[in-house]
C-alpha cells in the first residue's frame, strides 16, 4: 500500500517568492537519475514543483535553433527565470506569442545550472502555463506570504529546539509537518550560514510584497503613470497600464518606505540590508565599462571586480541583484550584457 501511495501521491506545488527562490544554492537528488531533483530553499522547502503567478517582463529566444525561450517573471520581491525548450513545446509556443507585460500562472519544476566557476543558477522549467489576471496575482502573493511566514516560524521553532539531523527530522514529523518540509528544514539549517540575516531579509521582502496588494490597483496605476512615461505601452488595451512591470512599483514602494522610515526611526533597522548598494554599483560600472555591446564573459567581470578589491561572493551576489533588477542579463550562460 505504501508503494502505491508513493506512485500516486501528487507532489505539492510550493509557494515561494522569487527573493527566496533565487537565494537557494543547495541541491539534492536522491536515488537513480529518474528520481526527482530538489532544491532546498533557505526556509527549508525541499522543492521540486512550484506554482507562480507573476508578471512576464521579458521573453527572449536564446536557442540556436529557435527552440529555447527564456522569460523573466516578476513578483513583488524579485524575478524568476523560466526556460522552455523543445521538451516544453506548449509553454515555448505560449511564451513566443506572449505580449509583455502580462500576468501568467506557471506550474513548473525547479532546475539548477552550475557552470564551472562555482556559481549556481536556479530556474524554472514549466509544466503548465496560462494567462492570469491581477486578482489571481494578488491572491498568489497573499498565499505565498502566508506559507513563507509559516515556514519562517517553523525554522525558528527548529532553531529553538536545539536539535539537528535525524532528531530534528523526527521532531518536525511528529509535529505533523510535511515530510519534505521536515527534511528540507534539517538540510537548510545545516547548509545556510547567516540564517538570521536571510530570515530578516526575507521577512522584509514578504511584508513589502503584502503591502503592494493592500493598495488599490487604480492608485497603483496612477503612481506608475507618474513614475514612468505611460506612453511607452505598445498595446491596444486601454486598461493595460496597470500591467506595468512591478519593477517600477518596487521602486515607488521603496521610496515611500524610506520616507516613512525617516519619520519613524524605530523601524529603520528592518530594511538596513536592502540599502548597501556600494559593491553592486561598482560591479554595474565594471559591466558598463567592459561591455561594448556584445556582452562580456561572466568570469572577466568577476576577475576585474576582484582586482578592484571586492570578494568573489559579493561579486556573485551583486551580479544576481543587478539581474534581478533588470539592469543586466545573461544572453547566454556565462555571458553578461548590460541593459
Amino acid at each position, binding site marked *: 500500500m505504501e508503494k502505491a501511495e508513493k506512485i500516486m501521491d*501528487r507532489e505539492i506545488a510550493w509557494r515561494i517568492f522569487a527573493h527566496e527562490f533565487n537565494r537557494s544554492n543547495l541541491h539534492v537528488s536522491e536515488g537513480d537519475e529518474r528520481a526527482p531533483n530538489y532544491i532546498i530553499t533557505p526556509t527549508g522547502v525541499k522543492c521540486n514543483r512550484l506554482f507562480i503567478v507573476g508578471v512576464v517582463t521579458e521573453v527572449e529566444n536564446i536557442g540556436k535553433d529557435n527552440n529555447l525561450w527564456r522569460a523573466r517573471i516578476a513578483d513583488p520581491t524579485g524575478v524568476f527565470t523560466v526556460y522552455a525548450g523543445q521538451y516544453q513545446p506548449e509553454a515555448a509556443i505560449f511564451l513566443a506569442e506572449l505580449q509583455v507585460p502580462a500576468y501568467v500562472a506557471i506550474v513548473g519544476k525547479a532546475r539548477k545550472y552550475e557552470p564551472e566557476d562555482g556559481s549556481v543558477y536556479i530556474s524554472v522549467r514549466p509544466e503548465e502555463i*496560462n494567462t492570469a489576471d491581477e486578482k489571481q496575482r494578488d491572491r498568489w502573493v497573499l498565499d505565498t506570504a502566508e506559507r513563507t511566514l509559516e515556514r519562517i516560524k517553523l525554522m525558528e521553532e527548529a532553531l529553538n529546539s536545539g536539535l539537528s539531523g535525524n532528531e530534528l527530522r523526527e521532531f518536525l514529523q511528529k509535529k505533523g509537518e510535511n515530510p519534505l518540509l521536515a527534511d528540507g528544514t534539517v538540510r537548510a539549517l545545516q547548509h545556510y550560514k547567516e540564517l538570521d540575516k536571510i530570515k530578516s531579509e526575507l521577512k522584509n521582502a514578504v511584508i513589502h510584497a503584502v503591502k503592494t496588494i493592500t493598495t488599490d490597483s487604480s492608485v497603483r496605476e496612477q503612481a506608475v503613470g507618474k513614475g514612468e512615461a505611460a506612453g511607452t505601452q505598445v498595446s491596444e488595451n486601454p486598461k493595460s497600464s496597470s500591467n506595468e512591470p512591478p519593477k517600477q512599483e518596487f521602486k515607488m514602494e521603496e521610496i515611500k518606505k524610506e520616507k516613512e522610515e525617516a519619520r519613524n526611526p524605530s523601524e529603520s533597522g528592518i530594511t538596513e540590508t536592502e540599502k548597501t548598494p556600494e559593491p553592486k554599483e561598482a560591479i554595474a560600472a565594471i559591466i558598463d565599462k567592459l561591455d561594448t555591446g556584445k556582452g562580456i564573459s561572466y568570469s572577466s567581470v568577476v576577475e576585474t571586480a576582484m582586482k578592484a578589491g571586492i570578494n568573489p561572493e559579493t561579486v556573485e551576489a551583486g551580479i544576481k541583484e543587478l539581474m534581478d533588477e533588470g539592469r543586466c542579463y545573461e544572453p547566454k550562460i556565462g555571458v553578461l550584457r548590460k541593459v
Partner: protein
Amino acid sequence: MELEFAPHVEEIKRALDNEVDESNITADLKKLLEYRVPLSEAKRSLIKKYGGGEKTTIKKLKDIQIGDRNIEVTGQVLEISKKTVNIKNIEKTIFSGTICDETTARSFTAWSDFDMKVGDVIRVTQAYVRNWQERPEVNFGNKSKVTKLTSKIEINQESEIRKLAELKDGDINVHAVFTILNMETHEINTKDGAKKIMGGIVADENTKIPFTAWVLLPELAAGNTVEVKNAYIRSFRGVPTLNINENSTIIKLDKRMEYKETGSVRIGDIIGKDGAYDIVIEGNILSIRPGSGLIARCPECSRVIQKGMCRAHGKVDEKMDMRIKAIIDDGTGALTLVLDAGLTQKICGYTIEEAQKMAKTAMSQKAVEDEIKKKLIGKILAARGNMSKGEFGITLVANDVWEPQEITREKANELLRRIAG
C-alpha cells in the same frame, strides 16, 4: 542412514498434522536428496505436495498486511452478508462482512459457507490477505478452517470520548458524542434474508461523518444528541463511517451539540487521513488530467469506453458525458478534484451538447479538454465533497464547485496586522 532422516520426517509429519504415512514421506525425501536437492527445499516441496501449508503465523488483525498468506486470526463477526458473484461465468455465493479482535476491525470475504453468524467468535486458519479498495481484507479460502469458540473477545469497555475528526478505518470500541443530523431506514440483504438498517449523518462541533446502525433503536432519531459506546469504524466508499451494532450502547443526552461549518480546510491537513466527509477546500487548479472533457460511456455499466466498445458489453450505443479530473493544490497539499457534467457546465459555461459541437467544429474530442485547460489552469476554485483514498490517489468528488469570493485585500491587511502585533 535411516536415523538421519527421522527428525526431518517427523517435522514434515507434524506440519501435515500427522495425516500422511511416514514411509511415503521417507521414500520421497530420500529420492529428493539423491537428486542433490537441498534439504530445506526438499522439506518445503514435500509439505506442499501433501497439501500442507508453510508455517502458519498467528496475527492480530491490526498487523495483517496485503499479501500475507497462511495466517491464523481470531475474532468476532460484526457483520456478514451474502453476495452472488460471477466468476468466469459461474455463479458463486460468497459471504462478506466485518470481523474484529481486540486490536481493530477489518473486512473479510469467505469464499464458501462456513456457517458464520453475527456475534460468533471464530478462529480461522490458513487465511490470506488481499487488497480491497487499498485496504487489507482477510480472505477465507478453500484451505481455511473456521472453528467456533466459546470464549469472548475482551474489549476494554472504558474508553475516552473521541472527536469524530480523529476516527479511522478499523477503529473499535469507539466512544463518541454527537448529534444526528439526518437519517433514514434501508433494507439490505443479509445471510438470513432482508433486514432493516438505519443510515444517515452525525456530527460533533466541527466534523460530519456518515453512520450505519445495524439495530433499530429509538434513541437514534434526527435532532437527538447521543453518547455512543463500543461503536466501530469501517470505510465505506473511502469515507470513515461509524457503525452501531448490538454490542453498542446509546444514551440520549439532554444537552444539544451544535455542528458549526468551519469554512474551507487546508488540503495538507486532510490528506493524511483515510477519508473525509462533506468538506470544503480551496486551491489553484494546476493540471487537467487525461480523460477530462467529453467522454463516452457504456449505457449498461457507465464505464468510460473508446470507439463504442465496452470491456464488458462489447459494441454498444455510447452515451456522451462530460467531466473534469483536475489537480487542485493550495500550497499545503494537492489532490485530484472530480467534477461531473453539471459542475463542469457550472464552471466552464457549456452543456454536453455545446461541448459536442465544439469537438465537432475542431474535429477532435480533445478540443474540449484544451478549452478546459485554458479556462482553469492557475485559477482558484472552491469545492465541496467527500475526500477518499484509492487506487487513483487522493480524490475529492465534488457535489458543488464555485469561484471563491474576492477578499484578498482584507486578508492582506489582516496579515499585516498579525505580523505587526
